[in-house]
C-alpha cells in the first residue's frame, strides 16, 4: 500500500515533466494519435536561439538570488521575535505579515508601481526584487519562526555562561542550530521569486522579462511545443534545487518534521 502511494506520488511529480519533454522535442502530436509522429529538436533550437529565453532565465535567477538573500536578512530577526517572544501587537504583526498572501498581489503591485515610478525603481531589477519580497517574506518568516518557536534559548544561555560573546554565540550556536530551517527558508524564497509572474510584469513594466512572463506570452500564442519548452526550462531549475536540497532535507528529517 505504501509503495502504491509512493509510486503515485512520483507519477504525479514526474509525469508532467515527461509530457513537457515529449512535447518539446516533437511536432504535430495531436489528440487522437497515441504517439507523436515525428521527433525533432528544431523547436527547442529555435527557443534556445531566442535571446529572450536565456536572458529571461538569467534575470529571473539574479532576482531570485537577491530576493533570497534579502528575505533571509529581513526574516531572521523578525522570525526570532515572533517565534520566541511574547509581546503585545504580536497578532497584528502576524496579520500584517500575512496580508500579502491574502490581499491580492494585483492591488499591491499597482500601488507599488506608482510608488516605484516616483523613486525610479520601476523597471529595474532592484525594484522587481523588492516587490518579490512581499510574496517571499511570509514564507521565510513563517518557516523560520516556527523553527524558533521550538528553539530553546537555553543553548545560548549555556554558551553565554561559558564565556562566549554575543557574536560568538550567533555564529557558533544560533546559526548552527537553525541551519536546516535556513535551508528550507532559502528554498522557499528562491522558488517563490522564480515563479513570480504578476509582480514582475507590473513592476518590471516590460523591461524586466523573466521566464514566467515569457511563458504567459507563449500561452496566449498557443504553439504547444513552444509552451512545453518554456515550461520545461521554467520547471527544471526548481526541480533541480529541490533535488539538491532533498538530501539536506532528509538528513535533517527530524528537525524538519518537528518544524511543521
Amino acid at each position, binding site marked *: 500500500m505504501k509503495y502504491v502511494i509512493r509510486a503515485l506520488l512520483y507519477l504525479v511529480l514526474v509525469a508532467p515533466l515527461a509530457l513537457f519533454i515529449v512535447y518539446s522535442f516533437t511536432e504535430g502530436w495531436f489528440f487522437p494519435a497515441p504517439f507523436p509522429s515525428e521527433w525533432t529538436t528544431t523547436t527547442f533550437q529555435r527557443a534556445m536561439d531566442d535571446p529572450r529565453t536565456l536572458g529571461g532565465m538569467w534575470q529571473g535567477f539574479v532576482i531570485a538570488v537577491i530576493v533570497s538573500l534579502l528575505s533571509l536578512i529581513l526574516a531572521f530577526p523578525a522570525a526570532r521575535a515572533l517565534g520566541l517572544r511574547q509581546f503585545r501587537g504580536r497578532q497584528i504583526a502576524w496579520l500584517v505579515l500575512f496580508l500579502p498572501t491574502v490581499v491580492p498581489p494585483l492591488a499591491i503591485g499597482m500601488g507599488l508601481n506608482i510608488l516605484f515610478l516616483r523613486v525610479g525603481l520601476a523597471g529595474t531589477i532592484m525594484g522587481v526584487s523588492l516587490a518579490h519580497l512581499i510574496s517571499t517574506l511570509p514564507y521565510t518568516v513563517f518557516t523560520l519562526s516556527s523553527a524558533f518557536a521550538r528553539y530553546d534559548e*537555553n543553548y545560548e544561555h549555556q554558551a553565554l*555562561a*561559558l*564565556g562566549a560573546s554575543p557574536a560568538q554565540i550567533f555564529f557558533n550556536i544560533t546559526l548552527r542550530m537553525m541551519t536546516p530551517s535556513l535551508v528550507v527558508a532559502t528554498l522557499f524564497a528562491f522558488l517563490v521569486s522564480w515563479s513570480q509572474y504578476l509582480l514582475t510584469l507590473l513592476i518590471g513594466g516590460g523591461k524586466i522579462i523573466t521566464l514566467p512572463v515569457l511563458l504567459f506570452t507563449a500561452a496566449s500564442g498557443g504553439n504547444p511545443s513552444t509552451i512545453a519548452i518554456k515550461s520545461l526550462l521554467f520547471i527544471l531549475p526548481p526541480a533541480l534545487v529541490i533535488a539538491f536540497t532533498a538530501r539536506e532535507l532528509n538528513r535533517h528529517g527530524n528537525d524538519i518534521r518537528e518544524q511543521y
Partner: protein
Amino acid sequence: MLKDFSLSINDGEMVTLLGPSGSGKSTVLKLIAGIEQLDNGDIRFDGESILQTEPNKRGAVLMFQKSYLFPFLNVEENIGFGLKMQGVAPSVIQGEVKRMLSLIGLPGIEKRKVGQLSGGEGQRVALARALVTQPKLLMLDEPLSSLDTSVRMNLQAAIRDIQRELGITTIFVTHDLSEAMAMSDRMAILLDGEVTAYDKPETLFHRPPCVRSAKFVGVDLFLEGEASGGWLDAADVGRVRLNDESKVGRSVFAIRPEHIRIQKEETENSLAGVVQSCLFRGEALEVQVRLGELTTRVRLPMPAPMFAHGENVFVQLPAEYLFEVAA
C-alpha cells in the same frame, strides 16, 4: 517574583535553594547569570557588584535539568567549548578535557556523539563543560530531576564529592527535600519569593524556625495555645506537657511525624484520635489520624501493626520532641 530575597554564601560553600515549583528558585540563578535583569537590589562577588559586568565575563556557570549539550559537537568539543571561545590553544584544551573526563568518571569518551550518551552521562558531561572554565560560581538548576532514582542518587554523591574536591562555591536548586539535605552545607527554603529559613540541613530538618518552613520539611502537626509553667493549653486538642518550663504566653509548638507514637491507652501527652488512613511506605508506616479539628500524619518505623480506617487510638507526643516555631 522575588520579594524579600537576601542570601550570602561563603567561599567554597555549597548552598541549596529549596522550594516548590514557582517559588522563584530558578529566577535567582538567572539573575546571577545575567540572563534576566534585576529590577532593584544588588549581586556581589567578593564584595563587588557584578551587575555592570557583562554576563559572559561573570565567571558564573549554569547547569540545567536538561544537559543542553550542543548536538552538533561531540563530547570533547562540548567540554572544550568555553575554553575555545576564550581563545585557549587546542592542545591545552585537549589536556583539560581529558582531566575533566576522568574527574567525572567517564574517561575516554572524547569522540562520543552527544546523542549516544545516557541521561546521567549527559549531565556528567554538562558538569565537566561547566567546570572546565574554572568558574567562580557553579549554579545547578535541578540538574538531576529528570533522571531515574538510582542514577540520581549516584550523581548526588558524585557532584558532592567533586564540589568538595574542587572547593568551588556552588548554588544548587531543587524542589526535592531529600536531595537538598544531602547536597548542601547550608540550605535556604524559598517560598513565594521569600527566604523563610536558611541554616544547616540538620537544623532545618529537626528545628525549622517557622510554620511555613516546617510544613515544607514535612512537619504536619502544629499545636497553638497559651503556654505557662511547662504546659501548653492547645485549644484544639487539650493540654500538653512541654520540656521548656520557662515558656509563657501565646505560642505554636510542632513535632515531626516520625517522633509521634500511636498507642492503645491514654498516657501523658497522648491525644485521642481516629485513624483516617494507613499507608505502607517501605521503611515506615504512614498513618493519618484526626485529632478533633486537626489531622496529622504519623510515621511509624517498620515493623509496625496496620491500623484500620476509623480505629480509635491515642497519639502520643513526647515532650522532648516538641519544639517551638514562629507562627
